Protein backbone atom coordinates (compact mmCIF):
# COMPACT_ATOMS: atom_id res chain seq x y z
CA UNK A 1 0.00 0.00 0.00
CA UNK A 2 1.23 3.46 -0.80
CA UNK A 3 1.21 5.94 2.06
CA UNK A 4 -1.77 8.33 2.34
CA UNK A 5 -1.45 11.10 -0.19
CA UNK A 6 -0.10 14.36 1.00
CA UNK A 7 -1.38 17.22 -1.08
CA UNK A 8 1.40 18.38 -3.35
CA UNK A 9 2.68 21.89 -2.83
CA UNK A 10 2.12 24.53 -5.46
CA UNK A 11 5.21 25.74 -7.21
CA UNK A 12 6.10 28.99 -8.86
CA UNK A 13 6.21 28.82 -12.64
CA UNK A 14 7.77 31.65 -14.63
CA UNK A 15 7.37 32.02 -18.35
CA UNK A 16 6.94 34.53 -21.10
CA UNK A 17 3.37 34.63 -22.35
CA UNK A 18 2.70 36.65 -25.49
CA UNK A 19 5.89 38.59 -24.88
CA UNK A 20 5.21 39.41 -21.23
CA UNK A 21 6.99 37.83 -18.26
CA UNK A 22 4.45 36.05 -16.06
CA UNK A 23 4.63 34.19 -12.77
CA UNK A 24 1.94 31.87 -11.53
CA UNK A 25 1.60 29.70 -8.47
CA UNK A 26 0.28 26.33 -9.59
CA UNK A 27 0.38 22.64 -8.94
CA UNK A 28 3.08 21.25 -11.26
CA UNK A 29 0.68 18.83 -12.97
CA UNK A 30 -1.91 21.49 -13.75
CA UNK A 31 -2.42 21.57 -17.46
CA UNK A 32 -0.92 24.55 -19.27
CA UNK A 33 -4.34 24.99 -20.91
CA UNK A 34 -6.05 25.50 -17.54
CA UNK A 35 -3.39 27.90 -16.30
CA UNK A 36 -3.66 29.99 -19.47
CA UNK A 37 -7.44 30.11 -19.28
CA UNK A 38 -8.11 30.30 -15.55
CA UNK A 39 -5.06 32.04 -14.09
CA UNK A 40 -4.12 34.29 -16.99
CA UNK A 41 -7.57 34.87 -18.49
CA UNK A 42 -6.42 33.83 -21.98
CA UNK A 43 -9.46 31.96 -23.22
CA UNK A 44 -8.48 31.80 -26.90
CA UNK A 45 -7.14 28.25 -26.47
CA UNK A 46 -10.18 26.00 -26.08
CA UNK A 47 -10.67 22.60 -24.55
CA UNK A 48 -12.12 20.23 -27.10
CA UNK A 49 -11.19 16.62 -26.49
CA UNK A 50 -8.71 17.06 -23.64
CA UNK A 51 -6.57 14.24 -25.01
CA UNK A 52 -4.45 15.73 -27.77
CA UNK A 53 -6.62 14.65 -30.69
CA UNK A 54 -8.44 17.84 -31.70
CA UNK A 55 -5.96 20.72 -31.57
CA UNK A 56 -8.39 23.33 -30.24
CA UNK A 57 -6.00 24.01 -27.34
CA UNK A 58 -3.00 24.59 -29.66
CA UNK A 59 -0.40 27.12 -28.56
CA UNK A 60 3.20 27.78 -29.57
CA UNK A 61 5.70 26.69 -26.91
CA UNK A 62 9.19 27.96 -27.72
CA UNK A 63 7.99 28.25 -31.30
CA UNK A 64 6.68 24.68 -31.47
CA UNK A 65 3.03 23.91 -32.03
CA UNK A 66 1.75 21.89 -29.04
CA UNK A 67 -1.52 20.81 -27.49
CA UNK A 68 -1.63 22.75 -24.22
CA UNK A 69 -3.98 20.16 -22.68
CA UNK A 70 -1.04 17.70 -22.70
CA UNK A 71 1.55 19.97 -21.09
CA UNK A 72 1.98 19.92 -17.30
CA UNK A 73 2.57 23.55 -16.44
CA UNK A 74 5.87 22.72 -14.70
CA UNK A 75 7.23 21.63 -18.09
CA UNK A 76 6.51 25.14 -19.40
CA UNK A 77 8.68 26.77 -16.74
CA UNK A 78 11.12 29.12 -18.46
CA UNK A 79 9.44 28.73 -21.84
CA UNK A 80 8.06 31.33 -24.19
CA UNK A 81 4.40 30.76 -25.00
CA UNK A 82 2.32 32.36 -27.70
CA UNK A 83 -1.46 32.02 -27.68
CA UNK A 84 -3.87 33.34 -30.29
CA UNK A 85 -4.18 36.52 -28.20
CA UNK A 86 -0.50 37.20 -28.80
CA UNK A 87 -0.72 36.89 -32.57
CA UNK A 88 -2.28 40.26 -33.42
CA UNK A 89 1.02 41.87 -34.38
CA UNK A 90 2.27 38.87 -36.38
CA UNK A 91 2.67 39.61 -40.09
CA UNK A 92 0.70 36.48 -41.01
CA UNK A 93 -2.28 37.47 -38.93
CA UNK A 94 -3.91 39.95 -41.28
CA UNK A 95 -3.71 37.73 -44.39
CA UNK A 96 -4.92 34.71 -42.41
CA UNK A 97 -7.83 36.54 -40.82
CA UNK A 98 -8.93 38.00 -44.13
CA UNK A 99 -8.59 34.69 -45.95
CA UNK A 100 -10.52 32.78 -43.27
CA UNK A 101 -13.31 35.39 -43.56
CA UNK A 102 -13.38 35.41 -47.34
CA UNK A 103 -13.24 31.63 -47.74
CA UNK A 104 -15.67 30.76 -44.94
CA UNK A 105 -12.88 29.10 -42.96
CA UNK A 106 -14.52 29.83 -39.61
CA UNK A 107 -18.04 28.97 -38.49
CA UNK A 108 -18.59 28.21 -34.81
CA UNK A 109 -15.06 29.36 -34.02
CA UNK A 110 -14.01 26.72 -31.52
CA UNK A 111 -11.27 25.28 -33.73
CA UNK A 112 -10.25 28.61 -35.25
CA UNK A 113 -7.55 29.75 -32.79
CA UNK A 114 -5.85 26.35 -33.11
CA UNK A 115 -6.25 26.33 -36.89
CA UNK A 116 -4.66 29.78 -37.14
CA UNK A 117 -1.73 28.81 -34.91
CA UNK A 118 -1.19 25.55 -36.83
CA UNK A 119 -1.29 27.56 -40.07
CA UNK A 120 1.23 30.07 -38.72
CA UNK A 121 3.51 27.23 -37.57
CA UNK A 122 3.30 25.74 -41.06
CA UNK A 123 3.75 28.98 -43.03
CA UNK A 124 6.77 29.99 -40.97
CA UNK A 125 8.47 26.78 -42.11
CA UNK A 126 6.94 26.57 -45.57
CA UNK A 127 5.92 29.98 -46.91
CA UNK A 128 4.51 28.45 -50.11
CA UNK A 129 2.91 25.19 -49.05
CA UNK A 130 1.36 22.66 -51.42
CA UNK A 131 -2.13 21.42 -50.55
CA UNK A 132 -0.61 18.22 -49.11
CA UNK A 133 1.61 20.32 -46.81
CA UNK A 134 -1.44 22.22 -45.56
CA UNK A 135 -3.39 19.01 -45.02
CA UNK A 136 -0.50 17.57 -43.04
CA UNK A 137 0.15 20.77 -41.10
CA UNK A 138 -3.48 21.00 -39.99
CA UNK A 139 -4.12 17.26 -39.57
CA UNK A 140 -4.06 17.55 -35.79
CA UNK A 141 -6.79 20.21 -35.77
CA UNK A 142 -10.35 19.02 -36.10
CA UNK A 143 -13.22 21.15 -37.41
CA UNK A 144 -16.79 19.87 -37.24
CA UNK A 145 -18.32 22.77 -39.20
CA UNK A 146 -16.50 23.62 -42.39
CA UNK A 147 -15.53 20.29 -43.89
CA UNK A 148 -11.93 21.59 -44.10
CA UNK A 149 -11.88 22.62 -47.77
CA UNK A 150 -12.56 26.27 -46.91
CA UNK A 151 -9.80 26.21 -44.31
CA UNK A 152 -7.26 24.70 -46.74
CA UNK A 153 -8.25 27.31 -49.29
CA UNK A 154 -7.91 30.09 -46.72
CA UNK A 155 -4.37 29.00 -45.82
CA UNK A 156 -3.42 28.77 -49.50
CA UNK A 157 -4.82 32.24 -50.09
CA UNK A 158 -3.08 33.74 -47.05
CA UNK A 159 0.24 32.28 -48.20
CA UNK A 160 -0.21 33.85 -51.65
CA UNK A 161 -1.30 37.13 -50.13
CA UNK A 162 1.80 37.34 -48.02
CA UNK A 163 4.06 36.32 -50.90
CA UNK A 164 2.56 39.13 -52.99
CA UNK A 165 3.27 41.76 -50.33
Amino acid at each position, binding site marked *: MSPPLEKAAKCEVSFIVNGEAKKVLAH*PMERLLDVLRNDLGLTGAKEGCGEGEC*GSCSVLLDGMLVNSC*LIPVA*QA*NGASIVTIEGMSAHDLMKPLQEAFLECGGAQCGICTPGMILAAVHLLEKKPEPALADIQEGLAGNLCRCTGYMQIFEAVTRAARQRAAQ
Partner: protein
Amino acid sequence: MRADPAEYRLVSPGNLQAALSLLAGEPAQWLPIAGGTDVMVLYSAGKLSNRNLINIWNIPELRQIEVSSDAISIGAACTYTALRQHEIVSREFPLLATAASWTGGIANQNRGTLGGNIANASPAADSLPALLVYDAELTLISARGERRVAYRNFHTSYKQTVLAADELILDISLPRRFSGYISHARKVGARNAQAISKVCLAALGQISHGTIREVRLAVGSIAPVPLRLNETERLLTGKRIEPALVGAARTIVSMEIRPIDDIRSTARYRSVVAGNLVAEFLEKLAAEGADA
Protein backbone atom coordinates in the same frame (compact mmCIF):
# COMPACT_ATOMS: atom_id res chain seq x y z
CA MET B 1 -13.55 11.83 -13.19
CA ARG B 2 -10.94 14.42 -13.94
CA ALA B 3 -7.70 14.19 -11.97
CA ASP B 4 -7.04 16.65 -9.14
CA PRO B 5 -3.62 18.22 -9.80
CA ALA B 6 -3.12 18.65 -6.06
CA GLU B 7 -2.85 14.88 -5.73
CA TYR B 8 0.14 14.59 -8.09
CA ARG B 9 3.78 15.43 -7.68
CA LEU B 10 5.99 16.30 -10.64
CA VAL B 11 9.67 16.86 -10.04
CA SER B 12 12.18 18.13 -12.59
CA PRO B 13 15.66 16.87 -11.77
CA GLY B 14 17.07 18.48 -14.93
CA ASN B 15 19.94 16.05 -15.46
CA LEU B 16 20.29 12.34 -15.95
CA GLN B 17 22.21 11.46 -12.79
CA ALA B 18 19.68 13.25 -10.57
CA ALA B 19 16.81 11.50 -12.32
CA LEU B 20 18.46 8.10 -11.89
CA SER B 21 19.13 8.77 -8.19
CA LEU B 22 15.47 9.56 -7.62
CA LEU B 23 14.47 6.36 -9.41
CA ALA B 24 17.03 4.34 -7.44
CA GLY B 25 15.69 5.64 -4.13
CA GLU B 26 12.07 4.57 -4.57
CA PRO B 27 11.87 2.81 -7.93
CA ALA B 28 8.22 1.85 -7.82
CA GLN B 29 7.15 5.39 -6.88
CA TRP B 30 8.07 7.25 -10.02
CA LEU B 31 6.65 7.42 -13.49
CA PRO B 32 8.86 9.21 -16.03
CA ILE B 33 7.11 11.76 -18.25
CA ALA B 34 8.73 13.17 -21.38
CA GLY B 35 6.46 14.81 -24.00
CA GLY B 36 3.34 13.72 -22.14
CA THR B 37 1.36 12.63 -25.18
CA ASP B 38 0.46 9.32 -23.52
CA VAL B 39 0.82 10.07 -19.79
CA MET B 40 -1.26 13.26 -19.88
CA VAL B 41 -4.12 11.52 -21.66
CA LEU B 42 -4.38 9.00 -18.82
CA TYR B 43 -3.91 11.74 -16.24
CA SER B 44 -6.65 13.95 -17.66
CA ALA B 45 -9.05 11.02 -17.74
CA GLY B 46 -8.37 10.40 -14.05
CA LYS B 47 -6.80 7.02 -14.90
CA LEU B 48 -3.18 7.65 -13.93
CA SER B 49 -2.61 5.56 -10.82
CA ASN B 50 0.98 6.71 -10.34
CA ARG B 51 0.99 9.92 -8.26
CA ASN B 52 4.68 10.75 -8.51
CA LEU B 53 6.04 11.87 -11.84
CA ILE B 54 9.55 12.65 -12.86
CA ASN B 55 10.08 15.10 -15.68
CA ILE B 56 12.61 13.77 -18.20
CA TRP B 57 11.63 16.12 -21.04
CA ASN B 58 14.43 18.59 -20.35
CA ILE B 59 17.29 16.14 -19.79
CA PRO B 60 19.93 16.92 -22.43
CA GLU B 61 21.50 13.43 -22.37
CA LEU B 62 18.22 11.98 -23.62
CA ARG B 63 17.81 14.40 -26.53
CA GLN B 64 20.95 13.74 -28.58
CA ILE B 65 21.30 11.97 -31.90
CA GLU B 66 24.83 10.67 -32.45
CA VAL B 67 26.06 9.24 -35.72
CA SER B 68 29.12 7.03 -36.01
CA SER B 69 30.43 5.17 -39.05
CA ASP B 70 28.42 2.02 -38.28
CA ALA B 71 25.44 3.12 -36.18
CA ILE B 72 23.08 5.93 -35.29
CA SER B 73 22.18 6.39 -31.64
CA ILE B 74 18.94 8.21 -30.95
CA GLY B 75 18.34 9.66 -27.48
CA ALA B 76 15.15 8.23 -26.02
CA ALA B 77 13.51 11.64 -25.60
CA CYS B 78 14.06 12.67 -29.23
CA THR B 79 10.76 13.73 -30.74
CA TYR B 80 9.17 12.53 -33.96
CA THR B 81 9.82 15.99 -35.35
CA ALA B 82 13.53 15.61 -34.55
CA LEU B 83 13.56 12.20 -36.28
CA ARG B 84 11.81 13.56 -39.37
CA GLN B 85 14.24 16.46 -39.60
CA HIS B 86 17.38 14.34 -39.19
CA GLU B 87 19.22 13.84 -42.46
CA ILE B 88 20.62 10.35 -41.73
CA VAL B 89 17.30 9.08 -40.36
CA SER B 90 15.48 10.31 -43.47
CA ARG B 91 18.08 8.94 -45.88
CA GLU B 92 19.04 5.59 -44.33
CA PHE B 93 16.04 4.72 -42.16
CA PRO B 94 13.04 5.79 -44.23
CA LEU B 95 10.75 3.33 -42.43
CA LEU B 96 11.39 5.17 -39.18
CA ALA B 97 11.04 8.63 -40.74
CA THR B 98 7.77 7.56 -42.37
CA ALA B 99 6.43 6.09 -39.12
CA ALA B 100 7.34 9.36 -37.37
CA SER B 101 5.28 11.25 -39.95
CA TRP B 102 2.29 8.97 -39.26
CA THR B 103 2.39 9.45 -35.53
CA GLY B 104 -0.32 11.95 -34.57
CA GLY B 105 -0.48 15.45 -35.98
CA ILE B 106 2.36 17.99 -35.96
CA ALA B 107 1.65 19.10 -32.37
CA ASN B 108 2.00 15.54 -31.10
CA GLN B 109 5.09 14.94 -33.24
CA ASN B 110 6.61 18.00 -31.55
CA ARG B 111 6.18 16.34 -28.15
CA GLY B 112 5.93 12.58 -28.62
CA THR B 113 9.24 10.74 -28.22
CA LEU B 114 10.64 7.52 -29.63
CA GLY B 115 11.60 6.26 -26.16
CA GLY B 116 8.12 7.06 -24.91
CA ASN B 117 6.60 5.08 -27.74
CA ILE B 118 8.81 2.11 -26.80
CA ALA B 119 8.25 2.33 -23.03
CA ASN B 120 4.51 2.87 -23.40
CA ALA B 121 4.54 -0.37 -25.39
CA SER B 122 1.28 0.07 -27.22
CA PRO B 123 0.97 -2.68 -29.82
CA ALA B 124 -0.45 0.00 -32.14
CA ALA B 125 2.62 2.26 -31.97
CA ASP B 126 3.64 3.02 -35.53
CA SER B 127 7.40 3.30 -35.00
CA LEU B 128 7.90 -0.10 -33.39
CA PRO B 129 7.78 -2.40 -36.48
CA ALA B 130 10.47 -0.21 -38.07
CA LEU B 131 12.70 -0.72 -35.02
CA LEU B 132 12.26 -4.48 -35.35
CA VAL B 133 13.33 -4.68 -38.99
CA TYR B 134 16.26 -2.30 -38.43
CA ASP B 135 17.61 -4.55 -35.63
CA ALA B 136 17.40 -1.77 -33.04
CA GLU B 137 19.27 -2.13 -29.78
CA LEU B 138 18.29 -0.24 -26.63
CA THR B 139 20.58 1.06 -23.92
CA LEU B 140 18.85 0.94 -20.55
CA ILE B 141 20.37 2.95 -17.73
CA SER B 142 19.94 3.06 -13.98
CA ALA B 143 22.05 4.04 -10.98
CA ARG B 144 23.28 0.42 -11.14
CA GLY B 145 24.76 0.90 -14.59
CA GLU B 146 23.95 0.43 -18.25
CA ARG B 147 22.84 -2.61 -20.19
CA ARG B 148 22.10 -3.25 -23.84
CA VAL B 149 18.99 -5.11 -24.88
CA ALA B 150 18.08 -6.14 -28.41
CA TYR B 151 14.79 -4.40 -29.16
CA ARG B 152 13.24 -7.69 -30.30
CA ASN B 153 13.57 -8.92 -26.69
CA PHE B 154 12.19 -5.79 -25.06
CA HIS B 155 8.44 -6.47 -25.08
CA THR B 156 7.47 -9.58 -23.15
CA SER B 157 3.65 -9.45 -23.42
CA TYR B 158 0.89 -6.88 -23.76
CA LYS B 159 2.26 -3.61 -22.30
CA GLN B 160 4.94 -5.59 -20.43
CA THR B 161 8.63 -4.95 -21.00
CA VAL B 162 12.01 -5.87 -19.54
CA LEU B 163 12.51 -2.29 -18.31
CA ALA B 164 13.12 -2.38 -14.55
CA ALA B 165 11.36 0.11 -12.28
CA ASP B 166 14.58 2.04 -11.66
CA GLU B 167 15.63 2.13 -15.32
CA LEU B 168 15.23 4.62 -18.14
CA ILE B 169 15.73 4.01 -21.83
CA LEU B 170 18.85 6.03 -22.63
CA ASP B 171 19.05 5.57 -26.39
CA ILE B 172 18.00 3.52 -29.37
CA SER B 173 20.80 2.39 -31.61
CA LEU B 174 20.34 1.32 -35.25
CA PRO B 175 23.11 -0.28 -37.33
CA ARG B 176 23.80 1.64 -40.56
CA ARG B 177 23.63 -1.31 -42.90
CA PHE B 178 20.16 -1.11 -44.44
CA SER B 179 20.47 1.86 -46.79
CA GLY B 180 20.77 -0.40 -49.85
CA TYR B 181 17.51 -2.20 -49.10
CA ILE B 182 14.21 -1.61 -50.83
CA SER B 183 11.83 -0.42 -48.13
CA HIS B 184 8.09 -0.30 -47.80
CA ALA B 185 5.98 1.24 -45.04
CA ARG B 186 2.22 1.05 -45.00
CA LYS B 187 -0.36 1.94 -42.39
CA VAL B 188 -4.03 1.11 -42.61
CA GLY B 189 -6.31 3.08 -40.31
CA ALA B 190 -9.74 4.70 -40.30
CA ARG B 191 -8.35 7.83 -41.96
CA ASN B 192 -4.93 8.86 -43.20
CA ALA B 193 -4.20 11.60 -40.71
CA GLN B 194 -3.78 11.02 -37.02
CA ALA B 195 -5.71 7.73 -36.81
CA ILE B 196 -4.44 4.83 -34.75
CA SER B 197 -3.49 1.89 -36.99
CA LYS B 198 -5.54 -1.22 -37.55
CA VAL B 199 -2.54 -2.79 -39.27
CA CYS B 200 0.87 -1.39 -40.13
CA LEU B 201 3.80 -2.97 -41.94
CA ALA B 202 7.50 -2.17 -42.06
CA ALA B 203 9.37 -4.12 -44.70
CA LEU B 204 12.91 -4.27 -46.08
CA GLY B 205 14.20 -6.45 -48.86
CA GLN B 206 17.02 -7.16 -51.24
CA ILE B 207 16.51 -8.81 -54.58
CA SER B 208 18.91 -9.73 -57.35
CA HIS B 209 18.19 -11.33 -60.72
CA GLY B 210 14.60 -11.81 -59.63
CA THR B 211 15.49 -13.80 -56.50
CA ILE B 212 14.82 -12.51 -52.99
CA ARG B 213 18.18 -12.36 -51.18
CA GLU B 214 16.84 -11.14 -47.89
CA VAL B 215 13.53 -9.91 -46.56
CA ARG B 216 12.67 -8.38 -43.18
CA LEU B 217 9.03 -7.92 -42.21
CA ALA B 218 7.35 -6.59 -39.08
CA VAL B 219 3.76 -5.66 -38.31
CA GLY B 220 2.13 -3.51 -35.67
CA SER B 221 -1.40 -3.30 -34.23
CA ILE B 222 -1.94 -6.97 -34.99
CA ALA B 223 -0.85 -8.82 -31.87
CA PRO B 224 -0.24 -7.89 -28.20
CA VAL B 225 3.34 -6.90 -29.15
CA PRO B 226 4.90 -5.66 -32.40
CA LEU B 227 5.71 -8.76 -34.41
CA ARG B 228 8.53 -9.81 -36.70
CA LEU B 229 7.24 -12.23 -39.36
CA ASN B 230 10.01 -14.82 -39.10
CA GLU B 231 8.14 -17.68 -40.76
CA THR B 232 7.09 -15.57 -43.71
CA GLU B 233 10.65 -14.30 -44.10
CA ARG B 234 11.96 -17.88 -44.13
CA LEU B 235 9.44 -18.87 -46.79
CA LEU B 236 10.39 -15.96 -49.03
CA THR B 237 14.18 -15.99 -48.76
CA GLY B 238 15.93 -17.37 -51.83
CA LYS B 239 12.72 -17.57 -53.88
CA ARG B 240 11.61 -15.90 -57.08
CA ILE B 241 8.56 -13.66 -56.75
CA GLU B 242 5.74 -15.45 -58.57
CA PRO B 243 1.98 -15.51 -57.99
CA ALA B 244 2.17 -18.88 -56.21
CA LEU B 245 4.78 -17.54 -53.80
CA VAL B 246 2.69 -14.45 -53.04
CA GLY B 247 -0.30 -16.70 -52.31
CA ALA B 248 1.78 -18.90 -50.01
CA ALA B 249 3.10 -15.80 -48.25
CA ARG B 250 -0.45 -14.62 -47.54
CA THR B 251 -1.24 -17.97 -45.94
CA ILE B 252 1.86 -17.99 -43.75
CA VAL B 253 1.28 -14.37 -42.70
CA SER B 254 -2.24 -15.13 -41.53
CA MET B 255 -0.98 -18.19 -39.63
CA GLU B 256 1.87 -16.49 -37.82
CA ILE B 257 0.32 -13.17 -36.81
CA ARG B 258 -2.24 -14.41 -34.23
CA PRO B 259 -4.38 -11.31 -34.83
CA ILE B 260 -6.51 -9.63 -32.16
CA ASP B 261 -10.09 -8.36 -32.07
CA ASP B 262 -10.31 -4.92 -30.49
CA ILE B 263 -12.15 -1.59 -30.71
CA ARG B 264 -10.41 -0.66 -33.94
CA SER B 265 -10.82 -3.82 -36.00
CA THR B 266 -11.41 -7.57 -36.11
CA ALA B 267 -8.91 -10.40 -36.23
CA ARG B 268 -10.22 -11.54 -39.60
CA TYR B 269 -9.86 -8.09 -41.15
CA ARG B 270 -6.34 -7.76 -39.78
CA SER B 271 -5.38 -11.15 -41.10
CA VAL B 272 -6.53 -10.37 -44.66
CA VAL B 273 -5.05 -6.87 -44.67
CA ALA B 274 -1.68 -8.01 -43.28
CA GLY B 275 -1.50 -10.54 -46.14
CA ASN B 276 -2.40 -7.81 -48.63
CA LEU B 277 0.30 -5.50 -47.31
CA VAL B 278 2.96 -8.21 -47.60
CA ALA B 279 1.73 -9.00 -51.14
CA GLU B 280 1.94 -5.30 -52.00
CA PHE B 281 5.51 -5.18 -50.73
CA LEU B 282 6.45 -8.24 -52.82
CA GLU B 283 5.06 -6.54 -55.92
CA LYS B 284 7.14 -3.47 -55.17
CA LEU B 285 10.21 -5.62 -54.56
CA ALA B 286 9.67 -7.46 -57.85
CA ALA B 287 9.19 -4.21 -59.78
CA GLU B 288 12.15 -2.37 -58.28
CA GLY B 289 14.37 -5.42 -58.39
CA ALA B 290 13.53 -6.31 -62.00
CA ASP B 291 16.72 -4.87 -63.40
CA ALA B 292 18.94 -5.44 -60.40
